[in-house]
């Protein structure tokens, strides 16, 4: 009960990050940005994730290699250091990773940099020094105007990520990936949260197939008593 079995499990880029990469490429194709840098923090295998993004159309990569567990606050601190060096005007992240489901890193990075944030973005336009961002909120949609530099986190409906073509996959092998270690940045990245145990959620009892709608309504009324 210490975690999820990950040995021999197929890994891929987080779907929200694919949307982030696609959006950056889209902006580059529209001549709104000059260069796209992909950053990933994790084990050596994270290099493959960076290659995928380079094959989609990004320009270069930075891998911060570590075997330790890196939680969102630490990711945000490391990304802040990268931003201090690279001085981007726009950082695009996924709204959440589908493993830890935390939904924190973009907002934390934005806070540490004191930059504007456009979370859960479903539409993005660059207008000179500003960004117009449409956000998915609980009751519908909201539009904000952000002063750049900005942090954007992507929602599902921002775009449809492209597949990398074989020639682009070949070309991506030649694009540079700079390798770093968390120690290069001189910050404390020790986890603040310790996982004590991981359990399977309680299983639901198997239900019944009813033959007809009148039977269903009868069950809902008299057995389940929910209508």
């Amino acid at each position, binding site marked *: 009960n210490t975690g999820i079995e990950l040995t021999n499990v197929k890994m891929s880029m987080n779907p929200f990050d694919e949307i982030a990469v696609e959006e950056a490429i889209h902006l580059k194709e529209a001549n709104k940005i000059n260069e796209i840098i992909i950053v990933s923090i994790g084990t050596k295998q994270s290099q493959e994730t960076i290659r995928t993004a380079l094959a989609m159309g990004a320009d270069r990569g930075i891998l911060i290699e570590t075997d330790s567990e890196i939680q*969102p606050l630490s990711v945000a601190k490391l990304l802040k250091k990268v931003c201090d060096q690279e001085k981007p005007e726009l950082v695009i992240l996924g709204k959440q990773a589908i493993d830890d*489901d935390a939904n924190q890193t973009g907002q*934390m990075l934005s806070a540490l940099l004191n930059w504007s944030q456009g*979370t859960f973005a479903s539409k993005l336009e660059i207008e000179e020094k500003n960004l117009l961002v449409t956000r998915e909120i609980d*009751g*519908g949609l909201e539009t904000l105007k*952000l002063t750049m530099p900005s942090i954007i986190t992507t929602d599902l409906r921002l775009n449809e990520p492209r597949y990398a073509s074989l020639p682009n996959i070949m070309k991506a092998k030649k694009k540079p990936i700079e390798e770093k270690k968390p120690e290069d940045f001189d910050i404390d990245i020790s986890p603040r949260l310790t996982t004590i145990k991981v359990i399977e959620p309680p299983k*639901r009892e198997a239900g019944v197939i*009813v033959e007809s709608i009148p039977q269903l309504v009868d069950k809902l009324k008299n057995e389940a008593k929910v209508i």
Partner: protein
Amino acid sequence: MTSLILVEHDNKDIKAPTLNTIEAAKKFEEDIHVIIIGSNCKSVADNASKIDGVTEVLMVDDNKFSNQLAEDITPIIVNLADKYNFILAPADTFGKNIMPRVAALLDTAQVSDVISIESKDTFVRPIYAGNAFATVKSSDNKIVITIRTTAFESAKISDNSAGITNIESIDTDSISEFVGQELSKSERPELTSARIIISGGRGMQSGDNFPMLEKIADKLGAAVGASRAAVDAGFVPNDYQVGQTGKIVAPDLYIAVGISGAIQHLAGMKDSKVIVAINKDEEAPIFQIADYGVVGDLFKLVPELEKELENN
């Protein structure tokens, strides 16, 4: 020490998720302060003071907070944080947008989407689309939490009368600006607080068929939801989406119509008390978690259901 809860509101009323968050905070058995940041929001403060368990209401009333932008309201919470050991908000788009910003500036981790408070530093939260529950212990001395509202009851509005304190506004760099909003208008209950929900999936085939579900919703006083497939196909707006990346719901009755039951959809509704599935594919995974299933053509079964409800 004390808990501080960030109140979600529209400058007139408190939104329902705040009430679940207050109920969750009672687990700490500490004083509960709530903070309302807004513009012309006195009525919100008055209502908040009546909520069971609230010991003090803080209010920051300033025109610049009318839309509660994260960049503007975060510094206020951070400024007050010295006095609090727990800072909470609901894990909806409001809380998720603001709280990690607060946590980062306090140099503390955030515990997202908490479904159970085990002790003052130990919490349970779902990971991997709800396919596992992780128990995590925080080593921070100040803890920032977002609460999965469906996992907690609502705090009651009582004859409580907590004191209201005005807090002075502070200057912030205006790096973001509100432009506009497009809210879905509906006479039906909100998805996250509805007692009954009827949801449609890809099997609905078109947005034009959703009125079939709306008719049933109106008979049952239910909300209408949708799977990601139905939203992506443009049948209904995105805020109908139930699932890992949409809304998390746990009504008394959830009726899934033409929804196969992908993991990411189940993550948003599998804590419903009673689940009904209507689907023509008897192998659909939704039947594995449904309490009652009907196998058949939804275009025949849904109108039948409507008629049957009318007769009853």
